[in-house]
């Protein structure tokens, strides 16, 4: 019998599964042994079954660029990614440390502004961020918590070192895939778990709920949480329904809420119901048409006043986007030293700041070797990948950088680690990243062992975003 592992040959990157000699690493040995016993035909059959299950469950996302508004399933790859405890522990510590520093930064930026006064983070970078919210100056959210939920994107370089690629502290998504992937894999392929005991992920909704409850305004005796979604056309709508269902909280849209006397209520069949914590999956710009975009129909008139009056917790708080602006990213290690007096556990990727004259010249002269990112963009949009770009694309980005240097950063191409992934004729190495999630309440950070592995399904591609042809894997964090 031919096994699907027969022709697995890692390319040049660090491979999660195989060591330099092509043998499975210790924590993958049991999985390799199981896979040896499975025929290609059997395996292909399971792939089809799994995709049908996902479609029936409606685990879909909407692709914005697709004019038909098609619902697609995020491709799920059957081969799990395994993270031993020795790798996870520093990840969890590093992520927690980073989130505490970013939260301190936000308290500072919207408060005293010490870090800018001391010249550690340039004032003009902060104030020029499109996500800096002037209206939020002077507002301290309940318990000083800005970043209740975050997702920190990590990659592994060619030596296998975990690096932070970017921070997501506005409305990071992806946790529903973590929950569903585990469910689907357990249901469709329990054999793969032989010899493993991955830490469970299904208590994430409970942990999220706990963090949200702990973030309620102090005066709320028996706090009520609601999850605010932009609605069914949002690409992460499935996730919103899943989290609301598993947390047992109401899923609301803007029109379901109203504000009276600076209190937030839902419109129910039994009259108004007071809301104390709003886990909002709507961006700052759309949250209150009176203060932000007046054309937004997603928001609630008066919500910002209720927030400013301290009557409702918004998770995440208003204005967090300044902390994950890509131009601020290079300063995060300095923030960690400044606020926590600690050395960063996880390093950044080397980053060139295009607003600096010397660094910009360097970037412009080496565009074909660098990845250029728009500082305000996310989701894999607005990027130039130098080595695979055309001359015309480079010229376009060069002009854009010269016109608005503040809007761009550049990084060397990080050769993301690779992982066995199902392809047409067996398994092949494909590049992966890792997004652990962190929950913050006050100064307590929880990093559940529920991380999302995204995989670039196109051979050689380094872009893992779902909008750009990425898929995902079940991710096993081992207890020891």
């Amino acid at each position: 019998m031919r096994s699907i592992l027969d022709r697995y040959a890692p390319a040049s990157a660090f491979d999660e599964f195989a060591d330099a000699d092509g043998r499975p690493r210790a924590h993958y040995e049991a999985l390799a042994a199981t896979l040896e016993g499975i025929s290609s035909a059997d395996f292909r059959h399971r792939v089809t079954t799994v995709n049908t299950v996902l479609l029936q469950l409606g685990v879909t996302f909407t692709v914005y660029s697709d004019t038909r508004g098609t619902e697609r399933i995020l491709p799920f790859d059957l081969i799990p990614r395994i993270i031993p405890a020795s790798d996870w522990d520093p990840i969890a510590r590093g992520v927690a440390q980073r989130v505490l520093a970013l939260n301190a930064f936000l308290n500072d930026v919207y408060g005293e502004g010490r870090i800018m006064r001391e010249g550690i983070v340039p004032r003009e970078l902060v104030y020029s961020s499109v996500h800096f919210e002037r209206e939020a100056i002077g507002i301290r959210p309940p318990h000083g918590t800005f970043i209740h939920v975050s997702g920190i994107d990590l990659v592994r370089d060619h030596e296998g070192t975990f690096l932070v690629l970017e921070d997501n502290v506005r409305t990071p998504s992806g946790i529903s895939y973590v929950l569903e992937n585990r469910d689907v894999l357990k249901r469709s392929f329990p054999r793969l778990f032989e010899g493993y005991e991955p830490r469970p992920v299904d208590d994430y909704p409970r942990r999220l709920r706990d963090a949200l409850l702990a973030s309620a305004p102090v005066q709320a005796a028996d706090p009520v949480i609601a999850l605010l979604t932009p609605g069914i056309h949002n690409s992460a709508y499935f996730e919103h329904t899943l989290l609301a269902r598993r947390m047992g909280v109401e899923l609301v849209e803007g029109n379901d809420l109203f504000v009276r006397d600076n209190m937030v209520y839902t419109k129910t069949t039994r009259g108004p119901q007071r809301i104390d914590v709003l886990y909002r999956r709507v961006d700052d710009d759309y949250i209150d048409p009176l203060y932000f975009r007046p054309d937004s129909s997603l928001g609630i008139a008066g919500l910002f006043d209720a927030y400013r009056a301290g009557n409702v917790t918004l998770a995440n708080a208003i204005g967090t986007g300044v902390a994950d602006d890509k131009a601020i990213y290079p300063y995060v290690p300095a923030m960690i030293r400044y606020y926590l007096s600690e050395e960063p556990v996880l390093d950044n990727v080397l980053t060139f700041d295009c607003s600096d004259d010397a660094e910009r010249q360097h970037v412009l002269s080496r565009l074909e070797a660098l990845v250029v990112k728009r500082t305000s963009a996310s989701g894999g949009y607005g990027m130039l990948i130098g080595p695979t770009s055309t001359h015309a694309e480079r010229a376009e980005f060069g002009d854009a950088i010269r016109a608005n240097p503040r809007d761009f950063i550049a990084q060397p191409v990080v050769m993301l680690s690779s992982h066995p992934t199902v392809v047409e004729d067996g398994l092949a190495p494909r590049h992966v990243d890792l997004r652990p999630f962190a929950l913050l309440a006050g100064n307590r950070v929880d990093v559940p062992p529920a991380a999302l592995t995204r995989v670039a399904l196109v051979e050689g591609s380094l872009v893992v975003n779902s909008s750009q042809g990425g898929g995902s894997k079940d991710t096993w964090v081992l207890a020891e």
Partner: protein
Amino acid sequence: MLSRVAESLYWTARNVERAEDLARLIDVTAMRSVDRAVDAERRWLAAYAVAGIAPPDGEIERNAAIERIVFGSETLLSITSCVRIARRNAIGVRAELTTEIWECINGLYLFVEAHSPRAIGPDGASSFLHAIRESAQAFGGICDATLAREDAWMFLRIGRYLERAAMTARVLRAMEPDAGPHVWQLVLEACCASEPYARARQQSFDPVEALAFLALSITFPRSLRFCLHEVDHALHRLSGAPVGTFATSAERTSGRICSSLDYAGAADLAREGTANVAERITAALDELGSSITSAYFPRVPVG
């Protein structure tokens, strides 16, 4: 419960019920037209009238009827449109539904979307309609089997029984059963009442008894009276007011319709005439629908 959510649940259930009822109606009409070609055109016109869909200008025949009433996407009243609307509403309230309910409605949608008049072919209509009907019935069953008897369940129930009563009334109105026993037979089949009626009334066929069965039976689950009592009961459980009293205009309307049926006799209905009874109940159901909307789904904040 959020008013928006309540309203979506109500419309989900109404549209699923309508899809089921239309599937049954089209199936029995198509069956009948096979061996009673002489009557076929009138039967199909009646089916269009029950569905509320305008018949085409050309020939009135089976294939065109199936295309329009089953698959028509230019109207919101066809079976496919009902299924789409039901799923669209269900998506908006996914957090309220159990996974099993969602999978059922999503499965029905995927099934319907995967078919077309061409795909089901000249002989496939019956099994296609059968599958829709079963799936729609499974929806009701799964709701009953997996939901707590709380507000969500009540609104689903109100939607289901209000729509069912409306369909029974429309069938009575549009199919002109008094044209003869063979039409009455078709009406009973369209309401899945043929066998229950036969069991309940073992004498020879009597149109007065048939009308009384479809309108006044307190045990047959598609009769007007049965359906209205279900709606009335659910409305009272929502408000907490005892049956026989009312807390909202919705309960007042449903109570009034219930008593008009509770204290009517077969002879009263016969005197009033099938068409008039159907007309009166249809108007009352429209009023009930509006009063439910203003009591529970107001456009402006309540309280």
